[in-house]
């Protein structure tokens, strides 16, 4: 593993790199917010498993996430999508073919990348994530308060004033980002290869279902090397089928 970095519009972020310096490379988008902490160790295990199969990978920190110096309340989905695209461009700069790997809501972040395909693990759409964040906030507040739709907007005049950040499970988030989530879905356009893998316990449709526990639900960050090996093989076969 090497610690690389990339420069985006407003600064520089770290990017972990794994595996060979040539051939196909995957760029991994971790889930947003708390789920990132719960899946980072697993993502590194996945990168190492990919490296054993001859596939390079990178995990960029995105602005407002991970070790980024950008405050979390300044993060927007669009800003993260732009930074992701720049990180992907850096990986393809030397002629490598780049594939997106999105975990959970990480699948929302690869839309602007020039990618040869997108592989999504248990992808979560923006409205579903917003519902879950609202649920966490509701559980924090208790039953005495009932959060309605767009509860994160301030509502006080003047209407054009910037709404203050809201705190959800220790993360300060901007109402703009929460508004973005109401419309964001994983990138899916015909002609662009996309593969979806989900857990067997998930009722939503997928190209493949795998038996495993959802690491992103565990408060203590866990790992699952057997699942990482299984998914790395799935990614490698899919990349080969895409001609990568």
């Amino acid at each position, binding site marked *: 593993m090497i610690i690389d970095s990339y420069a985006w519009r407003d600064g520089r972020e770290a990017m972990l790199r794994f595996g060979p310096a040539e051939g196909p490379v995957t760029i991994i988008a971790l889930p947003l917010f708390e789920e990132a902490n719960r899946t980072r160790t697993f993502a590194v295990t996945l990168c190492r498993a990919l490296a054993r199969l001859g596939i390079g990978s990178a995990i960029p920190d995105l602005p407002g996430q991970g070790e980024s110096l950008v405050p979390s309340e300044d993060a927007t989905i669009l800003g993260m999508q732009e930074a992701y695209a720049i990180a992907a461009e850096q990986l393809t700069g030397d002629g490598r073919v780049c594939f997106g790997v999105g975990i959970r809501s990480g699948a929302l972040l690869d839309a602007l990348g020039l990618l040869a395909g997108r592989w999504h693990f248990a992808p979560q759409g923006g409205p579903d994530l917003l519902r879950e964040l609202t649920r966490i906030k509701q559980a924090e507040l208790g*039953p005495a308060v009932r959060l309605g739709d767009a509860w994160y907007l301030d509502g006080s005049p003047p209407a054009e004033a910037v709404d203050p950040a809201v705190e959800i499970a220790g993360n300060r988030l901007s109402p703009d980002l929460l508004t973005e989530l109401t419309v964001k879905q994983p990138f899916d356009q015909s002609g662009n290869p996309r593969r979806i893998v989900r857990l067997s316990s998930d009722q939503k449709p997928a190209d493949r279902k795998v038996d495993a526990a959802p690491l992103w*639900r565990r408060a203590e960050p866990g790992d699952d090397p057997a699942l990482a090996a299984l998914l790395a093989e799935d990614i490698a076969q899919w990349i080969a089928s895409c001609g990568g």
Partner: protein
Amino acid sequence: MPVDDADQIDAAVRAVLRDVLALDDARVAQFREATPLFGALPELDSMAVAGVLTELEDRLGILIEDDEVDGEMLETFGALLTFARQKALL
């Protein structure tokens, strides 16, 4: 595969609690109707409550409205199971 019988729902609810609260199989197998959950399990904080509800939705193919969620439904294993059965077997 849709979950549509009582045994499957029982198994799914136990699996959700195991996965979200990081409990072992032996512990969740011992849960009875009267086993207290919210307030009795320190693992069941606000994030875990949201996780339990969302996982139940994903695994049972149901939609839980916010106004259906109250403290009582998470008070005991039996209350949660009854809620899940009512939603999934409608």
